[in-house]
């Protein structure tokens, strides 16, 4: 019953959206009525999605999708998250968000009526395309042909708090770019000189980018504690795919700052907007078609892949076609100097695009080679580390001073202060590297990260007085964001370069020495949880006979899907993480891996600061 409601409201919302596309020449709809229909369609598609969620909550196994991905004994939160823990449900969520973004736009926008209608028409078109995709290839409301009392269960690896909210957050990012896409295309149809679309684009691209950042961070945090591989970024194809719209979104957000009335930058913004959403769709295609091997390759189907490829070509082709046939109205040159703000931003954009293209190439190159020469190759972490990082390095260097550059001239106020501080910093970092183990990447990362933090702090101190008010925070927002990046760079550098790994074979009651710490394997616990058995090893970490903390790595066994998941035990300290994973057992002797990951917390702090300044920027006029 509930599935029927879901399906029919989905169909109704498609019909309403189709009605919105009737050209004005046939049927003239006034703006109020137009908005009403659009919002009504949004409400309908939300009802459709909520009824799927309800079917999951009620464990309604007459729905085939619920039967395949749920189980009545799952905890409540994973019943809800199960609704988007599979291909069909997640695409419905995606669809729902396309509509919600349009809805929010229709409520908040001060644009001219014509422009508003154009944006919503394009948004509706995207909605209809994806809705057809759902109905023809991925319907979550199919009826189960057999009568069953129990479902097959959700993949245990997805039963985790971070992963429950990871997909919706990520999708809010990906799908937000659909609105940015619509805004860009609609701006090409603008007859009057109306610059309002730039403000709209700014707002929505920052919203999407912030959500995307949060979504990616959640994913990698999950990978850190759940996969038990000791790291948090693996250059997995799906990670790469999420990184591409993220990078282009970052370029977009930055080029929106450049607007000084130059036509060429407006063109560039439109181009980036179209590219962002195209990459989001391309990512979906690569993941869902199953042509890439990845930890995310759940649900793969060739026919779906073809359909998404069609959507990709349709939207991208259409978008870029309009972009090309609508010529720029007038052309004025940019004020480029070595080195002012405009040129710094342009270099930033160029480097971002190169990084994105490199990631794209590395991700799809194995496919190209397999098709052309019939040999399989892998392109993994080592490739990206040695190509993307060198490309980004000058960008990071530039970033440290970019916010203080001027628009008109190539002079920097208080230039000497920066040079002095840079020299002092270099000396300190050099001394530090000299006294500890020298590592090239460690040195570069440390000096870059700390220089970015230092120069941003100097700028804040030099240019503004300390009055804590919202306006003040807004005015130093770009510095705050860059401090976040600096902190993150230090975290990334230290956790990857100076990670220490120890392997032990140890039985209950024994202890091992790690540097000045003593790790004692106290006890092994086996407990029955609601839908899994949990095995935990209790470790006591002490330093000079003082207890630091208990760490409990372990494994979970999920009887429904007969799967074992590893659960890393982590003790978070501001300066380092003690990270333990429990390996295999042989005659009551357990093999464990202990990682000491320095400054991992900096990565999350840095990301948090970036998200914070993203939120602040949304409210910035």
């Amino acid at each position, binding site marked *: 019953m509930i599935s029927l409601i879901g399906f029919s409201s989905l169909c109704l919302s498609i019909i309403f959206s189709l009605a919105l596309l009737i050209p004005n020449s046939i049927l003239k709809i006034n703006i109020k009525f137009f908005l009403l229909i659009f919002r009504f369609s949004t409400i309908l598609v939300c009802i459709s999605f909520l009824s799927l969620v309800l079917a999951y909550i009620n464990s309604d196994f007459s729905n085939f999708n619920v039967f395949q991905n749920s189980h009545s004994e799952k905890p409540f939160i994973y019943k809800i998250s199960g609704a988007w823990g599979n291909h069909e449900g997640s695409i419905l969520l995606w669809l729902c968000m396309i509509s919600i973004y349009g809805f929010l736009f229709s409520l908040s926008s001060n644009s001219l009526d014509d422009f508003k209608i154009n944006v919503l028409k394009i948004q509706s078109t995207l909605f209809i395309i994806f809705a057809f995709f759902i109905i023809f290839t991925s319907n979550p409301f199919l009826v189960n042909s057999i009568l069953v009392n129990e479902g097959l269960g959700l993949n245990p690896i997805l039963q985790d708090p971070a992963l429950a909210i990871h997909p919706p957050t990520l999708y809010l990012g990906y799908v937000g770019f659909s609105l940015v896409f619509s805004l860009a295309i609609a701006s090409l149809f603008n007859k009057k000189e109306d610059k309002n679309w730039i403000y709209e684009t700014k707002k929505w691209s920052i919203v999407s980018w912030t959500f995307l950042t949060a979504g990616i961070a959640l994913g990698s945090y999950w990978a850190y504690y759940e996969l038990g*591989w*000791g*790291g948090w970024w*693996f250059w*997995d*194809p799906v990670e790469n795919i999420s990184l591409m719209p993220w990078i282009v979104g970052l370029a977009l957000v930055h080029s929106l700052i450049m607007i000084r009335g130059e036509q060429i930058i407006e063109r560039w913004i439109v181009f980036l907007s179209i590219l962002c959403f195209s990459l989001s769709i391309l990512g979906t295609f690569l993941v869902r078609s199953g042509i890439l*091997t*990845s*930890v995310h*390759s759940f649900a793969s189907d060739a026919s779906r892949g073809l359909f998404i490829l069609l959507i990709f070509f349709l939207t991208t082709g259409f978008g870029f076609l309009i972009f090309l046939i609508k010529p720029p109205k007038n052309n004025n*040159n*940019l*004020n*480029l*100097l*070595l*080195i002012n703000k405009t*040129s710094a931003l*342009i*270099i930033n954009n*160029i480097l971002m695009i*190169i990084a994105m*293209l*490199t990631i794209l*190439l*590395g991700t799809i*190159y194995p496919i190209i*080679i397999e098709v052309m*020469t019939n*040999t*399989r*190759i*892998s*392109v*993994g*972490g*080592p*490739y990206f580390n*040695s*190509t*993307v990082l*060198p*490309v980004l*390095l*000058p960008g990071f*260097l530039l970033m440290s001073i970019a916010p203080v550059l001027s628009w008109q001239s*190539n*002079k*920097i106020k208080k*230039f000497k202060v920066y*040079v002095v501080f840079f020299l002092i910093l270099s000396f300190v970092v050099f001394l530090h590297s000299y006294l500890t*183990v*020298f*590592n*090239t*990447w460690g*040195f*570069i990362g440390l000096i870059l990260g700390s220089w970015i933090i230092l120069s941003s702090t100097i700028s804040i101190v030099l240019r503004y007085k300390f009055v804590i008010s919202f306006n003040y925070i807004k005015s130093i927002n770009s510095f705050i964001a860059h401090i976040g990046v600096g902190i993150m760079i230090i975290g990334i550098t230290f956790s990857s370069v100076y990670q220490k790994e120890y392997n032990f074979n140890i039985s209950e009651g024994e202890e091992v020495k790690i540097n000045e710490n003593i790790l004692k394997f106290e006890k092994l616990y086996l407990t029955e949880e609601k839908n899994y058995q949990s095995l935990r090893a209790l470790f006591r970490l002490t330093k000079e006979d003082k207890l630091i903390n208990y760490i409990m790595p372990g494994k979970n066994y999920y009887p429904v899907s007969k799967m074992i998941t590893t659960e890393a035990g982590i003790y978070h300290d501001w300066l380092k993480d003690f990270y333990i994973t429990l*390996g*295999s057992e042989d005659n009551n002797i357990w093999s464990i891996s202990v990682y000491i990951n320095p400054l991992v917390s900096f990565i999350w702090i840095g990301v948090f600061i970036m998200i914070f300044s993203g939120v602040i920027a949304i409210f910035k006029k």
Partner: protein
Amino acid sequence: MKFQYFFKYIFCFYFILSSESVLSNDKVDFKVKELTLELRCMTCQNQSVYDSDSDFAKDIKNVVKDKFQEGLNQKEIKHFLTERYGEYILFKPYFNTKNLFLWLFPFILLVFSIGFFIKKLKNN
């Protein structure tokens, strides 16, 4: 003008540093780690041999260790492994004609855009 010099120095500094090779360590374990991090565990999902605990990964780790002790170098071991498992096992593809585009593309792009940028700059 001062500013340009400042940048030149920073860039020189950076290139000197990056051209220097990472500390060499003679220990076999270190070599094994270095190499196995670049090998794909064929039975896992996108995990390196070094990080994996699967039987396949354990075998490969042992093979690599033995080969190092026999006196083979990294290149020879890679060659040995790709003969058995195909190039798919390497996370860092060979620099050969087939992968030329993969390796050169980012840097060609970089050079071109620098050239383009400088040209634009001169026009101003």
